[in-house]
Structure formats: C-alpha cells, structure tokens
C-alpha cells in the first residue's frame, strides 16, 4: 500500500516490481566505479577477473559491484564452466527514462497544489 507516498504521485503509479527494478537501477548507476564497469562491459562480455584488471580494487570488491549491477538489471551473469561471464543489459535503461516521466507528472500534481495553496492564501489575506 502506498497511502503516504501515493500523495507524491510517484510511487502509486508504479507497480511494486517496477519500483524495485528502478531503485536497483539507480542504486547501480549512483556509483562511479559501477558506471566505469558498465563502460568496459559495453566493449565486450567479461569475466570477473577481466573486469578486475581494469581497476585497482580487489576482485571481491568488483564482485560486489557486479552483484549490485545485476540486481539493478543493468547486466546479466552467465556461468561458463568455472567462469561467470558478465553481459551488459541495455534494457535496464528503460527504468531511468521512466523516472523522468514520473517526475514530470509528479511536478504537475505538486505545482497544481502549490497554485491552490497560494490562491487560498491570497483570498484570505485580501479579503
């Protein structure tokens, strides 16, 4: 249920699964290392070891970043023998453009309320 957040017009327009996906995508994109990983994966699919070669952080840290990217549905991971191959998923982008649409509607609703609030204020003050 989205009683309170629904007032924002943000959450109530999205199904819970969409909200989760979008949260994941934004969380994944918020970090510069993860954005850099996406850049490398845009060139080709890579194993964790290959991704790690491009960074001065540990393999474990890279693996953590890859997990977050996977949760954000920006990459997919396939097992190949003992290796795990990381693949960029461009459809993860959809949720980002969705956010712009949602904020667009969000502000329409908020600004309408702002206009009403100011009008009420002026009516009371002017007589």
């Amino acid at each position, binding site marked *: 249920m989205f009683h309170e957040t629904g007032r924002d017009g943000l959450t109530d327009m999205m199904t819970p699964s969409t909200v989760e996906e979008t949260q994941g995508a934004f969380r994944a994109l*918020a970090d510069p290392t993860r954005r850099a990983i996406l850049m490398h994966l*845009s060139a080709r699919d890579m194993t964790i070891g290959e991704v790690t070669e491009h960074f001065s952080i540990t393999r474990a840290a890279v693996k953590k970043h890859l997990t977050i990217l996977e949760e954000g549905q920006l990459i997919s991971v396939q097992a190949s023998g003992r290796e795990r191959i990381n693949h960029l998923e461009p459809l993860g982008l959809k949720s980002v453009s969705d956010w*712009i649409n949602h904020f667009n509607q969000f502000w329409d609703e908020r*600004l309408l309320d*702002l206009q009403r609030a100011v009008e009420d204020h002026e009516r009371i003050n002017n007589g």
Partner: protein
Amino acid sequence: MDNQTITKTLFFNASREVVWAFLTDKNKLGTWFHPADRNLREGQDYALMGKADDGSPKKMCWGTVIQMEPPSKLVQSFTVGPLSGAMTTVTWNLEQAGDGTRLTLEHSGFAEIAAPFGLLMALDKGWDAHFASLRTRVSEA
C-alpha cells in the same frame, strides 16, 4: 546537450515574496508538498517529512539548499526515497510578471545519472539496434 531536464512554468496572482514563502517556509511547504523539518536556509540540509505506514515520521524528499536569492532564485539538490540517494537538482526562478509572479521549475540531473549510457551509445554502433528494440519494448509495455 541536456535534453533530460524537466521544465515547468506557471503564473500566480501573488507577489514573488508570497510564492517564495511557499517554497521555503517549513509550514507553508506542508500546504502543497510535505512540511519541512525546518525553514530552508542556504547551505543547509533540508528534509520534507511524511509518515511511514506505522505512523512514524519519515523523510519523503531531502537534499541541500545550494543557492538562495530571495525572492528570485532557489537551487536545491533533491532526492526521494526510491532514488536510493541519487541526487538531482531542482531550480526555482521567480520573475515579476505584471502584478503577479512567473514561476519556472527546472528539474535536472537525470542526464548525469544516465550519462554513461549516452557515452556508451556514442562508442558502440551496436547500440542503435539495442535502442530500436528498447523503443519497441517500451512502446509495447
């Protein structure tokens, strides 16, 4: 170019000072948005407070007041819970228009969050095909 900025303009039959108060006063913010934890001040953090399902106070929107030029310009960083801390920028411009006020809202920062994708597209022609299928899927959704 940033084509991912939301811009809205509207007019008020009220002075800029009145509209300004509705953007910065903690209680007046509550009449159209959510009440703030305190009046907005340049350089200070702010939070707009709602209630969680169990009735406890919950931050709905928050950020920092970056710039304040009363009663003409307000710039704040802005995020909501579902953005998981990713910050965007909201800029309010108030201009005198006759006896009233012309208010312009700009909400930007989406491009910055999505910037890697613009770069990726430029680097890889294969993205054209990806985006064709993306557009198809989106329009079907």
